[in-house]
C-alpha cells in the first residue's frame, strides 16, 4: 500500500528531526571561539615573491580577466631588466567574493589566497588594497617556483640557460 509507506516516510522524517532536537549543536560561538582554517582556505589575497625575492606578479591581467566581480585592477609596465611588473595593483576587497578564480588563473603563482578571513574595516575605502598592502616577503605556497626560469625567454638568466632550454642557436654556425 502506497499510502502506508507514505505515512511511514512521514513518521520516519518526524522521528529523525525529533532525535536531532537532542543532539549537541555543532555551532561555534564565533568571536569568542575561533576555528583555525585549513592552510588552503580561500580568504585574503596576497602577492608573493619568487625564491630570489623578485615580485612574482608579471601583471599579465589574467586574474583581473578571470575575476567575476572585476575587483582587480592593475597597470603593467616594463622594468629596466626587462621584467614585466605591476606598476600599480589594486584589489577592492569590498567587491571580492573570494572565489579563488584569480589564484587559479595566475600563471606565475603570484596571487595566492591565505586563511586570514577576518577582513573587516570601518571605512569601505580601507578595503581597497594597493600593491604595498598585498605584497608579502615570501613565496607562500610553491616556495621553489620561479616563473622566469621556465618562461623560456631569459630575463632573469641569460637566454637559453633556463630550465629545459638549449643554448641559443647560432644561425651562422658551422654545424648543420
Amino acid at each position, binding site marked *: 500500500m502506497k499510502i502506508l509507506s507514505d505515512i511511514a516516510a512521514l513518521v520516519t522524517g518526524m522521528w529523525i528531526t525529533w532525535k536531532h532536537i537532542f543532539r549537541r549543536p555543532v555551532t561555534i560561538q564565533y568571536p569568542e571561539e575561533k576555528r583555525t582554517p585549513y592552510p588552503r582556505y580561500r580568504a585574503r589575497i596576497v602577492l608573493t615573491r619568487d625564491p630570489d625575492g623578485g615580485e612574482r606578479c608579471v*601583471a599579465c591581467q589574467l586574474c583581473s580577466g578571470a575575476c567575476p566581480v572585476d575587483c582587480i585592477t592593475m597597470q603593467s609596465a616594463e622594468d629596466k631588466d626587462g621584467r*614585466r611588473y605591476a606598476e600599480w595593483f589594486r584589489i577592492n576587497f569590498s567587491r571580492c567574493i573570494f572565489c579563488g578564480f584569480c589564484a587559479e588563473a595566475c600563471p606565475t603563482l603570484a596571487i595566492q589566497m591565505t586563511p586570514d578571513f577576518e577582513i573587516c574595516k570601518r571605512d569601505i575605502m580601507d578595503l581597497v588594497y594597493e600593491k604595498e598592502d598585498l605584497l608579502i616577503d615570501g613565496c607562500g605556497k610553491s616556495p621553489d617556483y620561479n616563473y622566469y626560469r621556465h618562461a623560456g625567454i631569459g630575463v632573469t638568466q641569460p637566454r637559453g640557460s633556463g630550465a629545459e632550454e638549449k643554448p*641559443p*642557436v647560432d644561425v651562422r654556425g658551422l654545424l648543420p
Partner: protein
Amino acid sequence: MPKLIIDDITVEVAEGTTVLEAAQAVDIPIPHFCWHPALGKAGACRACAVKMLEGPVKGIQMSCMLPVQDGMVVSTTDPEAVAMRRHIIEWLMINHPHDCPVCDEGGECQLQDFTIAAGHGIRRYSGKKRTHVNQDLGPFIQHEMNRCIQCYRCVRYYQEYAGGTDFGVMGSAGRVYFGRFQDGELESPFSGNLVDICPTGVFTDKTARFRARYWDYEMAPSVCSGCSLGCNTTPVARYRELLKITARKNEAVNGWFICDRGRFSNSAVNDPQRPRTPLVDGRESTRDEALEALALRIAETEQLYGTGSIAIVGSSRLALEAALLLPQLAQLTSAGALCYFTSEEERATTTSHLGLLSGGTSASQQEIRESDCIVVSGCDPLQDAPMLALAVRQAWRDGATVYVVGDGIVLPCEFTAVAAVDAVPLAAAKKPVLICSASCNSDHPAGLLVQHSQLKLAVIFPAANSYGAAQLAGEQGGVSLERAVASGKIKGIISVEADIPAHLLAGIPFVAALDWRMTETVRAAQIFLPTTAWVEMDGTSINNEGRAQRFKKVMNPGLPIRGLDPAGHPPHLHRTVPPGGEAQPAWQTLALLIERVSGEPVTEPFSGRWERLRGLDAGSEGVMIHDL
C-alpha cells in the same frame, strides 16, 4: 561555380577558391598559420588539415592548398583530421616558450587560440627547447624569436608584399631564423604590419609594450588621419590612453595593411601638453562660460568693426560634421569670410584637383592594385601617401608596368622613368591609373582625362579631410584666410582645428580657437575650447577618392590614468567627468555656439544632400560622395 559539401553544409564558391576559404565563407573555422588572405597560400604550417571524404581527391589534405572542385565532400571534424591538427599544433608548440603571461600577443594570439581549439593543453615533450637570440629591430618592433613557429608569414609579407630587402629568413632545417643581417631598424615603411601578420608574438608593438591585454582593450573601427588616403584602422586604447593602432581590413581602401606612419603616430593624442580645459583670456573656465564669452566677443567685434569682420576658419583635418556646421555659423554671425584653407595656393590646387574627380575617374587603392599601367606623376607616394606605394607594388607584382615622371622618387617596385606623361603608352592599357598630388599644379592632368576615357586618377591631397574641405569650400563659397585677411576687413578669427600661421594672426585683435592640439593658434587665442581627437569621437572624413568613411569613438577624452597618482584613481576618488575630460567633438561645441547665437538647437550636423551619411556604417566600405 563549383559546389562542394563541407561538414554537411553545401557551399558554392567561385572557381579558384581554396577549401579553407570556402569553409570560412560558411563560418566554419579551420586553423591556419601560414595562409593569410593577403598573402595566399604557402602550405608551410600543415595546421589546416581536413579530410576529403568524397570527390576528386581523398584523405587528409591541406585545405589552404586545395582549390575547390565540384563534388568534394570535406570533413573538418573527422577524427583523423582532428588528430592530425592536434599533432601538428603539438609539434609547433614543442619549442614555444611558456611566456604567454609576459607576451603582448597573449589574448590576441592565433597560436593560443588554435592550440586551445586543437585540444592541446598540456606539453608532453620533456626535452629541451630550442632558443634564439633576439635582434633589436628599432624603436617600433620588438623581436622575440623563441616564439616563432616558422610559418613564414613575416618574410613573405615583408619581402614579397612590401618589397623590403633587409629582413628575411636565414639558416635551414631546425634553426631557421627570421631577422635582419644585423641589429637595426627595419627599413620598410610598412614594417609595422609584421605585428599584425605574425600569428604569435615574434613581432609585437614596442610602443605599446607591456601595457594591456586584448580583453581590456577599448577598440572601435576608425580611419587613419595621417594622410588623405583614409586607411581603415582599429585604434586600441585603455585607461584613456591611445596604446596602439592596428590595421583594419577594407578591401576597397587599404586592404589588410597600413603604413608605419599611420600605425606609430599616436603620440599627439597622448601628449601631456594637449590643451584640455576651456580658457578665457588665459583663465581656466567652464565650457558654458567660454561659450558665453565667445558669443559676447563675436557681438562686440562686430559692433566695433562692423558686420563682416569675423572670419570662420576650418581646416582640412577637421571632421566633416564640424565642417558642415561652419557655413551655418558663418551665416548666423554674418561673418565676412568662411575659410576652409589658410593658404590661397592650397585652396586653389585642392579645389582644382577636386574638380577632376567624379565617381568614374577616381581610383581607389583597390583599383590601383588591379591596374595594369600606373603613372606616378610629380609626386612621392612613399612620402605623402605611403599606402599608395604599396598598392602600386601589388599591381606591379601582378604584371603592371609602372612609370614615374619626376626625379628622386623611390617606389617599392621596379619602374620606368619617363620625362613626361605623354611618353606613357596609356592608350594601350586597359586599366591605367595616374597618381598625382594636389599640392603640385605643374602638370595638371585635366587634358589627359579627356584624351583617355579609361584613365583613372588617384590624387594625393595634403590632409585627411582635404576632399571634404575643398568640396564644402566650393559649395559654400569659401575663400582662403590669406585672401580674407589681406582684404583688411577681418578683425576676429574663429579657428576650428585650423593651423593658422602666425603672420595671418598678427594684426587680428580677437582670436578664438577650438582644437585638441597645442598649436600656435591655440596659444594666440583669447578664447579656447578643447575638442576631441579623432579617437575620442564619432566622425566622418572624406578620403582622396571622395569616399566618406565613419570613424567611431574609441575612448573617452581625458588625462590618461597613466600619468595620475594611484591615490587619485577610482575608487579612491570619484568624479562624474574624468580629469581633463571636458573636451567634446568640435561639431558639438559649434552646435552649442549656434544654439547660443540663434536660439535654435542643432542636434544633427548632416542635412540636405549630406543626410545619407547619418547612418553610415563604420564597418562598411564607405560611401562615395559623388553618389550623394
